[in-house]
C-alpha cells in the first residue's frame, strides 16, 4: 500500500518534466540562430502541451481506475469506437503538418547563402585540428590539440564558411550559432551566418573523427568590423615575417 501512495506522488510530478526542459537553447548569437531558437521554442510549447495531456491521461487512469482490493467484478469490456480513433489519428496529423510548415520556413533562411559575404573562411578539418584560411588574404590560423586555434570574426556582417576535409568526416560546430555542418572528404559544404554579438565563443568538432576527436575545440572571437580589419592586417604582417 505504501508503494501505491508513493507511486502516485512520483508519477504525477513526472508529468511536468518537459516544462523544465522547454525553451532552454543557449542564447543564440547569430540572426540565423535566433530563428532556430524561436522554432525550438514553438516545438517546446507544443511538446509540453502534448506531454502534459498524454502523461496526464495516463496518470489519471492510473489513479482513478486502480482496482480496489477485493473487487473481482469485471469492468465494462468496451474495445472500439471508430469516431474516436479517427479523431486521434487526425489530431497528431494536423500537429505535425503545422510543425513541418514552421520548419520549412526556418530551413530556407538557415540554408540561405550570403550573396556577397564580407568574410569567407576556408575551414579545413583534419585529424586532429583545424586550418582556417581567410579567403583573399594569406592569413591562415592552425589549431592542434596542444595549441587550439583562436579565430577572429566581425559582427553584423555576413560570413560564409567553406568546409573541406582531406581525411575523415568531421563537423564544424559552434553551439551558440545553433548550427553545424559536416566536413566531408570529397564534398564541399558551405553555410553563412551573421554574428550579432561581440564575445568569445567555443567551437567543437561534432562528428566522431578518431583517436583525439575530443581535442578539437577552438575559439571564435567576434569583434567590431574595425577591430577585425586591424586584426587581419596585423596577422598579414606576422605571416610575412615567418
Amino acid at each position, binding site marked *: 500500500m505504501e508503494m*501505491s501512495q508513493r507511486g502516485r506522488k512520483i508519477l504525477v510530478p*513526472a508529468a511536468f*518534466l*518537459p516544462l523544465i526542459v522547454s525553451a*532552454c*537553447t543557449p542564447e543564440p548569437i547569430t540572426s540565423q540562430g535566433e530563428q*532556430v531558437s524561436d*522554432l*525550438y521554442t514553438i*516545438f517546446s510549447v507544443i*511538446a509540453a502541451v502534448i*506531454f502534459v495531456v498524454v*502523461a496526464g491521461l*495516463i496518470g489519471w487512469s*492510473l489513479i482513478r*481506475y486502480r*482496482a*480496489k482490493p477485493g473487487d473481482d*467484478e*469485471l*469492468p465494462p*469490456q*468496451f*474495445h472500439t*469506437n471508430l469516431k474516436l*480513433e479517427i479523431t486521434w*489519428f487526425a489530431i*497528431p496529423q494536423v500537429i*505535425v503538418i503545422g*510543425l*513541418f510548415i514552421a*520548419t*520549412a520556413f*526556418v530551413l530556407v533562411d*538557415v*540554408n540561405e547563402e550570403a550573396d556577397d559575404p564580407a568574410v569567407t573562411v576556408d575551414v579545413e578539418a583534419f585529424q586532429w585540428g583545424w586550418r582556417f584560411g581567410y579567403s583573399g588574404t594569406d592569413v591562415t590560423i592552425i589549431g592542434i590539440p596542444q595549441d587550439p586555434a583562436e579565430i577572429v570574426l566581425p559582427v553584423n556582417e555576413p560570413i560564409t564558411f567553406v568546409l573541406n576535409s582531406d*581525411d*575523415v*568526416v568531421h*563537423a564544424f*560546430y559552434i*553551439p*551558440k550559432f545553433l548550427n*553545424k555542418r559536416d566536413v*566531408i*572528404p*570529397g*564534398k564541399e*559544404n558551405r553555410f553563412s551566418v551573421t554574428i550579432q554579438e561581440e564575445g568569445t565563443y*567555443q567551437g*567543437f*568538432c*561534432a562528428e*566522431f*573523427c*578518431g*583517436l583525439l*576527436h*575530443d*581535442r578539437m575545440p577552438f575559439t571564435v572571437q567576434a569583434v567590431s568590423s574595425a577591430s577585425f580589419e586591424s586584426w587581419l592586417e596585423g596577422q598579414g604582417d606576422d605571416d610575412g615575417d615567418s
Partner: protein
Amino acid sequence: MATVDSPADFGIERRRSGLVDYITTTDHKKIGILYLYTAVAFFLVAGALALVMRAELAAPGLQVVDNQTYNELFTMHGTAMMFFFVVPLALAFANYFVPLHIGAPDVAFPRLNALTYWMFVLAGLTAFSGFATSGGAAPFGWTGYVPLSESTYSPSVGADLWIMGLLLSGVSGTLGAVNFMATIFGMRAPGMTMFRLPIFVWNIIVTSALIMFTFPVLTAALSMLFIDRNMGGHFFDPKVGGDPILWQHLFWFFGHPEVYIAILPFFGVVTEIIPVFSRKPLFGYRGFVFATLLIGAYSFSVWAHHMFTTGAVDGPFFSATSMLIAVPTGIKFFNWIATMWRGKIRLRTPMLFCMGFLFMFLMGGITGVFLASPPIDFAVHDTYYVVGHMHYVLFGGSVFAIFAGIYYWAPKMFGRMMNERLGKVHFWLMLLGFNVTFFPMFQLGLNGMVRRIADYPAETGFAPMNLLASIGSAIIGLSVLVFVYNFFMSKRRGMPAGNDPWEGYTLEWATTSPPPHHNFTRLPPIRSQQPVFDETQQAQRESRG
C-alpha cells in the same frame, strides 16, 4: 480446467534439461531461453562498458581510461546493445511465445532456429574478440562511418572482427525473420485467424519484414567495407571516385528501420500486458494493427534524417516523413490509454514497468519530433541531446518493456513467480537512475556537449551535469543487480506460478508453466483475440448458472 499436466511429463522435462540438451536442442522454448540468457549477458557486459564511460566523464580530465580505450568502449557498447541485446531479446520472446500464441507445437524450421541462435552467439563473440587482440576492439562507433573505418585510419584487426561479427549477426537475423514469417503464416491453430493474432505476433510479423528488407542492405555495406579494407576496393574512397556518403545512406537505410526492429516487438509486449492488468480487452485492435503496418511502411522513408548535417540529402522530404511517422505511434498511445480507461488496473510489477515505458517512451518520441526538424537538428545533431533522446527511446522504451516482459513471462518460462517486492524496488531504482542519467543530457546537448568524447574542457561548464549523469548511471547499475538477484532467487524459491497466474488472455496461459515439450495437451476453442479469457469466463458462468 481440463489442462492435463501429468507428472510423467514433468519428469521427462527435468531429465532432459542438462547442458548437453541445451546445446543440441531444437525446441523453440529452450532456444528462447538460450536467447534470453545470452542477450541479458550481453546487456550486462555492454552496461558495464557504459558505467566505465560514465566514470570517465564524471569530471574533466582523463582519469579512468585513455582516448583509445574510450573509443573502443562506446563502439562496443552501442554495437552490443543494438545487435547482441535488444534484437536478440526480441527473438527470445518471439521464440518462446510466437508458437505458444498461435497454438503451434514449434517454429516452422526448428533446426534452422538452432543454427540462427548459434550464429548469433558466434557473431557476438567475434565482435568482442577484438578486445583480445593487440590493437583492441573496433574504435569507430557502432555506425562505422567511412573513411574513419577504412584501413588507413583504423588498421586494427578488431575492426575486421567487428565487420565479421555484424555480417554473421545480419545473416542470423535474416534467417530468424524468415523462420518467424513461415511459422506465423503457416502454423496457426484452427480458428487462429490473422485478426485474432495477439498484437505481439503482429509486431513480430512487421519486425520480421523490416529485418528481411534491411539486414541484407547492412550485409552488403559491410561486405563493401571489408573489400575496401582487405582486397584493395575503393567503394568509399573519395580520392578515386568512391563516395563516403554512400556508406551513410546504406547504413541508415538499415539503421533507421533497425530502431523500429528494436522497439516494435516491445510495443507488442506492452500491448499484451496492459489489457491483462487493466482487466479489459485491448482498445482498437484493428487500429493497432494498422498503426504497426504504417510504422513499418514509413520506416523505409525516414533514414536520411540522420544525415541532415551532411548537406547531401533532401531536408524537407525526410523531415516530412520523419514527422509523419510520429502519428501512428501517437495512435498507439491513445489506444493504450483507452485500454486502461475505466478498467480495474492492477499495478503489479509487469504493469509498473509498462507505465515506466509509457512515460519514458513519450519523452523519447516527442524529442524525436524535434530531431526531425532540420534547423533544430543542425543545432543538436551529434550532441548529448541525441544521446538523451535515443536512450529515452531504447532504454526508457525498449528496456523498460523488456523488463515488463520478463516479469510477465518468467512465471510461464520457469514455473515460478518473481518476487513482487524486489521487482518494485528494481522498478523505482531504475526509473530514478534512468532519469537522473539521461534527463540532464538534453540540456548538455543544447549547451554544446558533443557525443563520443572521452573528455571535455573544464571551462565549458559541462562538469556538474555530467557528474549527475554518472551518479544516475550507478543507480541504474544497482537496480540491475537487484533484478539479477531477484531473477535467480525467484527461479529457485519463488511461489509456484500455476498455468495462469495473471488471468491472461492469450494461449500461453492455457498450458502448464513451463509448457510440455509439444506445448499443448489441448487447446481452448479460439473464437476471439482472448481465447483463454473466453474459456475461464464461460466456466465461471456455468458454475454460477
